[in-house]
């Protein structure tokens, strides 16, 4: 209990990640890891394109969008013309640069980040519906994945006092 505000602390976060860009996946991972670091229970549900983050073939290759991303800037701050983002290799190059910057800040690659979260007791789940849609099998997933769940099953994991569901 916080003595000043009488607030009861957060006990559990359930995070749903439905997108597969660097920013969506990392927002999810940072929040989940940040929770376990604070002693808050964390459950993460990856669905739709978010599944890339826990699919062995894709997890090392996630990108950020260089087209249709108005917040994209050149190094130095000038606007990043969308037409540049369409050129082959630009998205990969920009994504590699972002990952380099993150590494400098001690933000690990996706697989290592997932390991950090599960080492702290966090749990990672895959969405059954999206798995069926993308024709994925349990063997295609990162080995630390706790299971493949329906959304109903995932809600079943989200009970308890002071639990929040976050959709990234």
């Amino acid at each position, binding site marked *: 209990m916080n003595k000043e505000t009488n607030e009861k602390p957060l006990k559990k976060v359930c995070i749903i990640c439905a997108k597969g860009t660097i920013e969506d996946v990392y927002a999810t991972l940072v929040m989940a*890891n*940040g929770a*376990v*670091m*604070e*002693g808050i229970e964390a459950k993460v549900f990856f669905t739709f394109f978010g599944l890339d983050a826990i699919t062995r073939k894709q997890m090392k290759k996630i990108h950020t969008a260089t087209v249709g991303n108005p917040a994209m800037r050149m190094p130095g701050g000038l606007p990043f013309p969308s037409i540049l983002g369409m050129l082959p290799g630009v998205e990969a190059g920009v994504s590699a640069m972002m990952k380099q910057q993150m590494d400098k*800040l*001690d933000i690990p690659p996706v697989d290592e980040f997932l390991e*950090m979260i599960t*080492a702290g007791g966090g749990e990672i789940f895959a969405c059954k519906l999206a798995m069926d849609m993308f024709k994925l099998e349990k063997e295609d997933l990162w080995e630390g994945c706790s299971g493949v769940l329906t959304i109903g099953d995932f809600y079943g994991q989200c009970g308890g006092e002071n639990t929040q569901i976050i959709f990234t």
Partner: protein
Amino acid sequence: MAQETIAGKNVEVDQEGYLINPEEWTKEIAVEIAKDIGIELTDKHFEVIDYLREQHAQGTQLSIRKVGKSGITDIKELYKLFPGGPLKHSSKIAGIPKPSSCV
């Protein structure tokens, strides 16, 4: 900032009880802060604490990942040693400021 007596020594602490001056830290203080958190310190704990103090003295910004790669302990064990706050609790016990890292 406030004065507090921990293990019979007068030290300066911040609002959350982190030592302001790492030089004022002693092993007795560590034991006392740990007891307050609910942790009984072992040699392994002190290995981690020594590492944290060393790194802090060198100006390194600490993260769980760094401690996990230190060769002293892995992340899983770090969580076992300092349940509920692997970096926060260990930093507090080590007498260094509250970690400002998000990872």
